[in-house]
């Protein structure tokens, strides 16, 4: 069966340089997350259209706390600035500023989660009472899960960046990329769920 008898003598290579594996992996996760949020918002819009076309009200009689949702939008974009600050500080080997930037990033993520919890309490949407509840909690809950995952990412990035060689810390860039995705995803959710309703 064998068709070859020659000895394979390919030239040896030096150890391959890192190719930003974590960054690429995060980018792929962000692409998947974009499809997730995009798909969910598409279904939201479709069902909203059906309700409105049938003469119904959307979102029934709930009053959306616009201040909280707007603050969440500002928070998540501000969060990106701090995540990027961590990248900048890390590349300069500035451990103190990196720690500060990551700490503020985590704090803002917690603030976002707190604001979402406020919206849940304030709107008091009943999940089983009408057609709006399940849709609302599905979209906002998924967005909340994305932010919680980002908070975990921030924690891991903090330990790995500060515990290792700061200048070579690719995880900070990947971490910042994730938050850019989260901010973009929330912007879409904010527009569809809280603005156009």
């Amino acid at each position, binding site marked *: 069966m064998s068709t*070859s008898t020659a000895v394979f003598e*390919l030239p040896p290579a030096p150890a391959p340089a890192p190719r930003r594996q974590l960054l690429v*992996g995060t980018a792929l996760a962000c692409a998947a997350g974009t499809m997730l949020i995009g798909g969910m918002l598409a279904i939201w819009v479709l069902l909203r259209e059906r309700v409105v076309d049938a003469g119904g009200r959307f979102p029934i009689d709930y009053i959306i706390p616009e201040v909280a949702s707007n603050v969440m939008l500002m928070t998540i974009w501000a969060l990106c600035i701090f995540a990027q600050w961590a990248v900048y500080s890390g590349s300069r080997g500035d451990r103190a500023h990196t720690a500060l930037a990551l700490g503020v990033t985590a704090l803002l993520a917690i603030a976002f989660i707190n604001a979402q919890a406020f919206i849940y309490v304030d709107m008091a949407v009943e999940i089983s009472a009408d057609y709006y509840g399940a849709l609302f909690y599905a979209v906002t809950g998924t967005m909340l899960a994305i932010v919680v995952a980002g908070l975990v990412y921030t924690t891991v990035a903090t330990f790995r960046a500060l515990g290792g060689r700061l200048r070579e810390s690719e995880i900070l860039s990947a971490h910042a990329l994730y938050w850019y995705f989260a901010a973009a995803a929330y912007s879409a959710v904010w527009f569809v769920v809280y603005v156009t309703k």
Partner: protein
Amino acid sequence: MTTIDIRPDAADTAADDAHSDSAVASFFVGAAAWITTTDHKRIGRLFVGSGLLALLATTVLGVLLGLERADDANTLLNADSLLQMFQAYRVGLVFAAIIPLGLGLSIAVAPLQLGARSIAFPRLALTGFYAWLGGLVLTMVALGRNGGIGGGDDQAVDLFLAGHGLMIVGLLASAGCVATSVLTTRAPGMTMRRVPMFAWSALIGALGMLLALPVLFGAIIYLFLDHRYAQLNFGGSEGIATWIGWALSTPAIVVFALPAVGVAAEMFPVTFRQRQPLRGVAFAGIALVGVTALAATTQQLVFDVTFDTDGTTFIKGAVPFILFSGLPLLGLAVVLGLGLLTAKQGMGNGRPHISSPFVFALLGLKMIAIGVIGNFLYGITDLELIGTVFEEGATLFVVYGATLGVMGGIVFWAPKLWGRVLPEKQVLPLAVLGLVGTLLAGAPLYVAGFLDQAGGVPANDADVAAMLSIGDVTSGSLWNILSFAGHGVMALTVLAFAGLLLKSFTGAGDPADENPFGGYTIEWGTSSPAPANNYEQVVTVTSPEPLFETTSEGSPS
């Protein structure tokens, strides 16, 4: 920072140490080594092995349902369980067979082809396997407890959806590892244009999954919350079919068959001892097949087009129809056409080396193409095939065709995965048997579709009853009997193939030398089986077929 784990599994070493102690201890340590492995070759084999077992169970379900369809009285099976059996069969074809088989082969082989020491994020890939397996078990348990689409037990329906969600998360995790590997762990000198055909198809397939499956996951989140708490928006349990049915059918599932297409594209140059001509075009062909992933973004069950209509209506239907039914067909035609061109150019290099992997891969590619052609015809409204069993025929051609392709890949790369060559005389007949099974299972359903036999993913007992009642009873029964026989032949093929694999894996058969099939990509330069970290020394790649010049029978271009 690198996340490649280049250490051999600690448990592997422990297994070697324990080998001499006792058989029982050796077994447990060996099992632990498999359960906790970070070796991509083992993770891939876990996927493929589980996929083959699940496919076997699915083909048996196909046999039972085929018998029920062929029986005019429809009394062979318990009528109350038919709905769940149909769903287990459809879910099995897609989530338990075509996806894990293709993904498993990609995980096992792609890093080897890239010259990588490991897959990217190996622990995540293993976690993905367990999530998929756990989700599959939950899904089947839910179906067994009157859950699933249109199920009567609300909790079991919720479990069915949760199981799907878990499966999707697992598959996404593993697909992400494959895509990241191809993009980041290539050997020095291996530019994207020099990536082997199979690794390219693994990349496109993984990217397709990363784009398509999250859309399904989003729909499942809605369905789960709505079904559990409200049942107001999505039509309760019966409405689930409307929202996830697209994922169980063509054209969305064609993207899962991409690794099989890649195996075929890989085999032509090896068989005809010829460099791959027009590599860029071949890459584009494979990528065109991957366009079907975008069909998921529409979440549409059918992409239909009506020719007998005015301009605007026609264009509205024609654009998605061409995108999701036409482009994949064009892509497959490109891959097949370039294969033939390779064969023509390679005729001057002596007698082609036709081996069982090539036969498997070629037949698999043709079966997939017949399925995609079926999907193309299904969307033409004027043929009045929509809603018929014709769609199931197309799905079967794609799934069973992809299975044949993956089987070819397993035979081809078995030397690198566990160091044995599968016996050609025993494997080759299975390719022919698989072809017969696929044709018998799928083609009669095409005919039955033209006879208006109802098909699709059933949402309730009325749908099942419609699927079992055949308009033209006499000839309809004949086609269903043939399809039932096809499932049976396919079950035999899978069983025999799994048996051969098990035998070979436990040490039977001839040990393989480095390059038993005369391959030209770099994995054929390492030992058989490949060591835990794949390569003793990282090599520099200088061409797409780096071993072409070094093989004794290869013809330099």
